[in-house]
């Protein structure tokens, strides 16, 4: 337990990512961790990963264990254990004068899939736990093959119940309810091309801001020329995202991929991201992958780096995740087939190393470490991040 006023400023840092972590928790099972291939259940597999993130003064690492096992021909069960061990001295911590802090987040997921004809029905449950935030998500999905197995349509619904707490105030407890509506369509285009369209609406209701985070406003009475006050967010948010992805098989056994996603929400955030990838298997059992991603967004209507006065408007935010910014990232993955032809109960196995470097550039979030500048003219903030994953995959 951290104590005193430092907590408020320390936790500001991690707070920026917390709301999205909740959304991620539930979405993961139905959309990401266990891809549904309608008409056939996925292969039995286990993945053991160590992940590490280092950027902007924040270091996050931990394990992830993912297991999928069929029971008979029609049922598969899944489980995921995931930990984020956070050590943070981000820009928010540094500029508040607080010291580095550490905390853990543990996430446990379970799911079941049932195959019936050309359809797969799935249910999932996820729990995420931190010392000041708990999230529970339940989900249901159905995926159907149709048109001669040329098309797969997927529908999903998730409901999340979060509890927000405050380490500086034991009496503080607020709720957030979230609902995700998902629609997916995967289509065979040619013998060498697949296309996927996904649409998702997410609605949030409840305490959506961070109990620790503050906004900055001009204050001539302050020695710095500015002061801070708590942020205030609307209690509802609705967002829509539409993504288009495609993969194309090249004549010499390699694949290229492309992705575009458009996002907008009721807070005024509008985002685009593009991604391109290339996958190249070698005869020796190696698979090489490279990818480039670009992301850009506009700021929320109530975001400002520096408000003109205290209580300047009814809603206020200085969360850099709601600012104008863009990012570029370049990544590589190296995979090697350790066991290609079976060994005891293992059909095959691969070892994988993935690395990505991300450049973040903010357009209206300023670096307050520069205390010599007139408020509002400090240099714009930017940082780089390194993301690494090492994982072993077993199929059995």
């Amino acid at each position, binding site marked *: 337990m951290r104590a005193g006023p430092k907590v408020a400023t320390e936790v500001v840092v991690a707070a920026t990512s917390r709301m999205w972590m909740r959304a991620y928790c539930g979405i993961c099972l139905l959309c*990401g961790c266990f891809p549904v291939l309608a008409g056939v259940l996925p292969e039995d597999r286990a993945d053991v990963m160590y992940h590490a993130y280092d950027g902007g003064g924040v270091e996050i690492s931990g394990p*992830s264990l993912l297991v999928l096992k069929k029971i008979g021909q029609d049922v598969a069960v899944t489980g995921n254990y995931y930990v984020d061990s956070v050590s943070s001295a981000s820009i928010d911590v540094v500029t508040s004068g607080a010291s580095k802090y550490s905390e853990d987040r543990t996430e446990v997921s379970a799911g079941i899939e049932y195959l019936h004809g050309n359809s797969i029905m799935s249910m999932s449950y996820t729990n995420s736990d931190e010392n000041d935030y708990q999230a529970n998500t339940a989900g249901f999905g159905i995926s159907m093959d149709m048109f*001669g197995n040329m098309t797969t349509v997927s529908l999903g619904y998730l409901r999340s119940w979060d509890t927000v707490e405050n380490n500086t105030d034991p009496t503080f407890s607020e709720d957030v309810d979230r609902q995700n509506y998902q629609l997916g369509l*995967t289509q065979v285009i040619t013998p060498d091309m697949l296309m*996927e369209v*996904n649409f998702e*609406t997410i609605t949030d209701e409840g305490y959506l801001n961070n109990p620790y985070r503050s906004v900055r406003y001009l204050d001539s009475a302050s020695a710095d020329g500015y002061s801070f006050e708590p942020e205030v967010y609307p209690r509802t948010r609705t967002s829509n995202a539409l993504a288009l992805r495609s993969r194309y098989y090249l004549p010499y056994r390699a694949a290229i991929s492309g992705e575009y996603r458009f996002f907008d929400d009721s807070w005024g955030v509008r985002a685009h*991201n593009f991604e391109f990838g290339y996958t190249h298997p070698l005869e020796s059992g190696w698979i090489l992958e490279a990818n480039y991603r670009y992301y850009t967004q506009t700021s929320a209507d109530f975001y400002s780096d520096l408000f003109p006065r205290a209580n300047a408007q009814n809603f206020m935010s200085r969360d850099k995740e709601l600012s104008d910014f863009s990012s570029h990232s370049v990544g590589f993955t190296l995979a090697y087939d350790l066991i290609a032809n079976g060994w005891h109960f293992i059909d095959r196995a691969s070892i994988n190393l993935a690395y990505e470097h991300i450049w973040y550039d903010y357009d209206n979030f300023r670096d307050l470490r520069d205390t010599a500048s007139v408020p509002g003219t400090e240099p714009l903030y930017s940082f780089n991040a390194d993301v690494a994953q090492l994982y072993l995959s077993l199929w059995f």
Partner: protein
Amino acid sequence: MLAKFLLAVVVAMLASACSSVEPWVRPYERAHLADPIMSFTRDPVASAYMTHVYQAREGARGAEGGHGGGCGCN
């Protein structure tokens, strides 16, 4: 509005599934599509992690995909 449009598209597709649709890519033509390198989520643990990395630092969320399927290779 967009959600309603997409829902209408899906309903229309489900309704038309009652009539026969001739696949223009035959099952025996799907060897390339069945290759693991054509999977949208070949490594689910890695895809989920990167989705988490992006979501934690971006305002956008949703439609990350990974529903898979569609190649009818099995």
